[in-house]
């Protein structure tokens, strides 16, 4: 149990997927201008990443490794993730329309989100067990959501400030993301 907590804290705070692993930057920049969209995106990522993490882990362990097809990992994973997102979208639309309305627009964005794909690949590279992969996937997603929401809070204010013209929008957002990433140094050594 303790090990899982350490893993979780490490994935959320120290090896934060956005701020330390540089994954998922485009949605990070794209959905952080407003708190509402940030929260929506965070939820969607948590939802998809946990499912994708587990399914790709199983695909890798039971199919690719068993048949010596590791070199097809990239292609297999992207197909799994793409179809998963499609499936989730269809499923939600039919059975949980409220959730679909909330997550709907964010789901397609996630297909081509390297955070999801990246986290799945990290699970494999780190040789995590099934439980570890579950904890790590969830924690990465929570870390993504946490950073995204904190960032949105800061960014909402920056947008109202008097940022010089050439720095406006993405430029100042990147600088701020840098500080965000620096801020997370605070948790170094804590697990």
């Amino acid at each position, binding site marked *: 149990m303790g090990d899982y907590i350490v893993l979780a804290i490490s994935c959320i705070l120290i090896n934060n997927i956005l701020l330390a692993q540089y994954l998922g930057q485009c949605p990070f920049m794209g959905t952080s201008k407003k708190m509402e969209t940030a929260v929506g995106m965070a939820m969607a990522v948590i939802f998809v990443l946990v499912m994708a993490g587990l399914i790709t882990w199983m695909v890798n362990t039971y199919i690719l490794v068993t048949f010596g097809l590791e070199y097809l990992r990239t292609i297999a994973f992207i197909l799994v993730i793409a179809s998963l997102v499609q499936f989730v979208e269809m499923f939600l639309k039919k059975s949980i329309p409220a959730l679909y309305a909330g997550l709907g627009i964010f789901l397609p964005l996630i297909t081509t989100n390297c955070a999801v794909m990246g986290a799945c690949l990290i699970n494999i590279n780190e040789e995590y067990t099934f439980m570890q992969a579950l904890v790590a996937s969830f924690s990465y997603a929570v870390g993504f959501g946490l950073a995204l929401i904190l960032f949105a809070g800061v960014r909402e*204010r920056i947008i*109202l*400030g*008097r940022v010089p013209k050439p720095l406006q929008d993405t430029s100042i957002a990147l600088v701020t993301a840098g500080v965000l990433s620096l801020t997370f140094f605070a948790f170094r050594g804590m697990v």
Partner: protein
Amino acid sequence: MKRSFFGLQQPRFKYDAVSNVNIEPVRIAVPEKVTLFLNRPFEGKTPRTLNVGDRVKTGQKITLYEDSDAYVISSVTGVIRSFDSFLGDYGQALTAINIEPEQTDEFDEALRKALEEDGIAAARDYLLSIPGGMPPEMLKGGHVDTLVICGIEQDLLSITNQFVTKSKVSAMNKGVSAIKKITGVHKVVMALPQSLIQEAGAIGGASGVELRVIEDEYPSANPRLIMRDVMGQVVPADKRPEELGIFFVNAEAIAAVGEAVEKKILPVTKTLTVIKKDMTKTVVEARIGTPFSDIFQALDITLFDRDRIIVGGPMSGTTVYAEDHPVDPRTLSIMIQDSSDVPLVSDYPCINCGECVRICPADVPVNMLVRFLEARQYETAADEYDLHSCIECGLCSFVCPSKIPVFQYIRLGKYELDRIRLEEEAEAPETLEEPAPETEETTEEETKTAAAAKEEEA
């Protein structure tokens, strides 16, 4: 006015009390020219009931435009010399009527006739521009649940209502019973500072007014704060008290109503407080329409370039361009400010010091609000940052170390939102009309199918 050394403690403003001061008002002579404002844009071509050269009597109801029942009461007997267009606050367009008064007053008899023929309710059509002013919605016959008489002004320094409350007890008594009959209101409340409660006892006893004490600290005389603290009812931010049937009137107006029904002549003399540069106060009585310059002359006040003439108090008044600006029925005070005391605004952004948030009596998140207002995001300001909760006390501007014109931003924001809302409402009927063709189409289709059916039958 300066921030104290102990800045941790918030600045406090006390309303001035008049109970112990014996004030003799200065009476201003009838001026050489009076100017009355009619709440209608000036239209040269619209047929008028009166024209330049016509004579009017004191107390005469002037309904200038034939196609409108907006009126103003003449405060003198004299000859109309000209009409003008005048821009009020936020570009409100008014018609200015300039009258040259004669030496002696000849009083208009319309009110007397109306009262004698139709009883007291007939006064309703004459009271709008009585000294102190009456809420138009109340006179139009809207439901009046509660009437709150303000024995004290919202803003600081001005003592007009207190003075009237103290000196015109019997007129107020009559005014209260009259206004009860005119509007049918049962509950009349008078909000007073503790210092006046003795004097006002007489009013309460005779005419069935509930007396309520308000704190002597600014801005507790603000209508919304009176509602919350004295009446125990919070007015929703997006509603005005009037919409709940609660009307606020100045004590002066009630006294004026009393005088009017007693003498059957409309009073035309306005009481007001003049605050000089050294903050000494003088109570003045002048005909409505008297140019400020006459008052200044009578009080030996000299003005220089870059001084400021403020109508109303220091926290929420408005400034005027010219010395010959006339006294309006609602003018409670005139304040003169020396150019060296004029605080400058800066174009600094909010530094998030939080002074405004701590002082705001309405718990408005001013620090955030001001950012959205500056960015002209009025809708967000209203929806998420409580623009409409602001009771317009001006304290936030007072304490802002960035010298941001916060209060001005707030008023502008509210004004802009109102404008947008009005525009949308104006557009709304068009959108309502749109469904009409659709129904026509369906009927057409129905007729067609009906026709087809007939053909088939055939």
